[in-house]
């Protein structure tokens, strides 16, 4: 049986654009049909924007790559209409175990916090995620939505000026040209478009090599846990990770260090003994995919360059500990989609796009900070750093005190845009977790989940407060979501949104982030905050 990543899911087909006399102009061209490009395309199409997606390939990601997808990613995919399928296919896990040398130091349960529709994480092969995204594109296409996914379309030249973008594309039947109002470069870590525009990366470069082996163990010998080893006997001086994926596939991640011979290390005759030492000599396994990866922590100085905007790995890269690559890229996509839509409609000034840079660069900095810290704990860079790392692990075997310092990756949580230029008033007496800039916190309501009620436009969430059903600001309609005590199933609405105050009014952005909050409704303040969240002068 062939694997899903061996099947051309969007094979090349000639498009009328290739026969046009003059280059056809599209509002949005997305380059790259990875998780980020596809998520962005779906979001934009659901907002009514026509999109063209170009990819040099015609298949989903070869081999698994990303395997951990966060709650925030699932919430975004719920809004895009594919959350259920992913959760059904994915594996949920809560138990983590930490080993040091030959012994288990401690185990922890990622006790899921009550009152959320989605778990903190699911494990799922990246190729399945991409397959679900492609399927969703196909459904939208069959409903007549203007989404054109073009396989074997390789972008070879990009020219950008303040008015638009001109690109040349190579296909199996030769080249053609397109124009775009905006080109979104979701073309991955090696981003050819970054190179074409002569742009490069900034920041601390951290380098290491990891052997990634996805193995199939039919007898399901290992339980559904995350196991992490510091300095194990089978990989001295390095780290190792074992994690379950659907279909009895296990991710083995062995750190190899910097000075290695990659070609030599990837040979099956070298990989198999390493995996055998890791799994025990009697464990039967089959290699599904092996690869050696080098990771770097860095991001572009700016993500927006005239009419070319970078999102996902093309804009920023992190080490794998914390599962922040695809998860943060998908948050780039949701951040950009509504802004681009409103700017193209003329409902918001072009300057709204500057907030994409401000918010997502801050998020990239946060992700890089987390993954750099994890990397420094896993691979101490000095003698004293190793001394403290080992002391933390030694103490943790006996005392809970130092366990919070054990860092094998802090799993991805969404960034709070504390310094966003779009934020409006805050009421400091309300709970910190729902302050302006943060993602709305889910809550079980008497008739479903709060996140499912935040459907992608501007909304005014009111709790125990009268307010009009719609507030209009220019072409933007802000619809009210009216809740009161009777909706609060288990007190969490009050705990997460009111705290010590008796009522609340929240302005929610199209990406489910909170823009402003008050205890009472005041029309003029709400209108001012909506304008602020649209990037209009305050």
């Amino acid at each position: 049986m062939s694997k899903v990543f061996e099947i051309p899911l969007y094979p090349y087909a000639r498009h009328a654009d290739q026969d046009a006399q003059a280059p056809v102009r599209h509002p949005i061209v997305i380059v790259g049909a990875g998780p980020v490009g596809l998520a962005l395309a779906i979001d934009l199409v659901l907002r009514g924007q026509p999109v063209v997606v170009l990819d040099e390939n015609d298949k989903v990601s070869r081999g698994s790559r990303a395997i951990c997808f966060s709650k925030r990613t699932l919430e975004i995919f719920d809004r895009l209409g594919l959350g259920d399928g992913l959760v059904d296919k994915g594996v949920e896990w809560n138990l983590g175990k930490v080993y040091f040398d030959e012994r288990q130091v401690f185990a922890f349960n990622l006790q899921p916090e009550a009152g959320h529709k989605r778990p903190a994480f699911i494990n799922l092969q990246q190729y399945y995620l991409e397959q679900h995204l492609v399927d969703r594109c196909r459904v939208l296409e069959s409903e007549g939505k203007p989404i054109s996914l073009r396989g074997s379309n390789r972008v070879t030249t990009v020219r950008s000026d303040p008015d638009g973008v001109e690109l040349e594309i190579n296909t199996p039947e030769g080249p053609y040209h397109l124009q775009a109002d905006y080109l979104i470069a979701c073309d991955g870590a090696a981003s050819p478009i970054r190179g074409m525009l002569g742009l490069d990366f900034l920041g601390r470069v951290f380098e290491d090599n990891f052997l990634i082996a996805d193995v199939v163990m039919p007898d399901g010998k290992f339980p559904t846990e995350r196991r992490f080893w510091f300095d194990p006997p089978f990989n001295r001086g390095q780290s190792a990770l074992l994690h379950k994926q659907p279909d009895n596939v296990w991710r083995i991640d062995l750190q190899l260090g910097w000075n290695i011979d990659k070609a030599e290390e990837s040979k099956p005759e070298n990989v198999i003994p390493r995996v055998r030492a890791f799994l025990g000599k009697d464990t039967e396994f089959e290699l599904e995919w092996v690869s050696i990866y080098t990771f770097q922590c860095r991001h572009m100085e700016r993500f927006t360059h005239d009419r070319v905007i970078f999102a996902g790995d093309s804009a920023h890269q992190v080490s794998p500990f914390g599962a922040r690559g695809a998860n943060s890229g998908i948050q780039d996509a949701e951040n950009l989609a509504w802004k681009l839509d409103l700017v193209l409609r003329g409902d918001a000034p072009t300057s709204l796009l500057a907030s994409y840079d401000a918010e997502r660069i801050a998020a990239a900095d946060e992700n890089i900070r987390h993954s750099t810290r994890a990397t420094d704990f896993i691979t101490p860079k000095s003698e004293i750093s190793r001394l403290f790392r080992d002391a933390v692990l030694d103490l943790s075997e006996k005392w809970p005190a130092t366990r919070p310092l054990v860092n094998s990756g802090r799993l991805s949580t969404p960034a709070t845009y504390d310094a966003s230029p779009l934020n409006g008033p805050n009421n400091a007496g309300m709970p910190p977790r729902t302050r302006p800039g943060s993602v709305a916190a889910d809550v079980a309501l008497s008739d479903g989940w709060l996140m499912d009620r935040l459907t992608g436009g501007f909304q005014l969430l009111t709790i125990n407060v009268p307010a009009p059903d719609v507030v209009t600001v220019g072409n933007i309609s802000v619809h009210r979501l009216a809740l009161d005590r009777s909706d609060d199933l288990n007190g969490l609405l009050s705990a997460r949104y009111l705290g010590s105050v008796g009522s609340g009014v929240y302005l929610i952005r199209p990406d489910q982030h909170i823009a402003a909050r008050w205890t009472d409704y005041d029309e003029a303040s709400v209108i001012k905050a909506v304008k602020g969240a649209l990037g209009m002068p305050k």
Partner: protein
Amino acid sequence: MKLNTLPNIAEADDFYADLIAAHEGLTKAESDAFNARLILLLANHIGDRTVLSEALSAAAK
């Protein structure tokens, strides 16, 4: 300043003797590891980030 920089240990001489005694018979590497564990346990006990930051800079001078 939140860090207590005034004398605070009763029977200070006894504590000091205990500290030195705890290192007796340890190699340099074992002593270093012991110190690291001790710092981590004490830091956790203090907990207060301001006090910890002030102690870090006071110790650096």
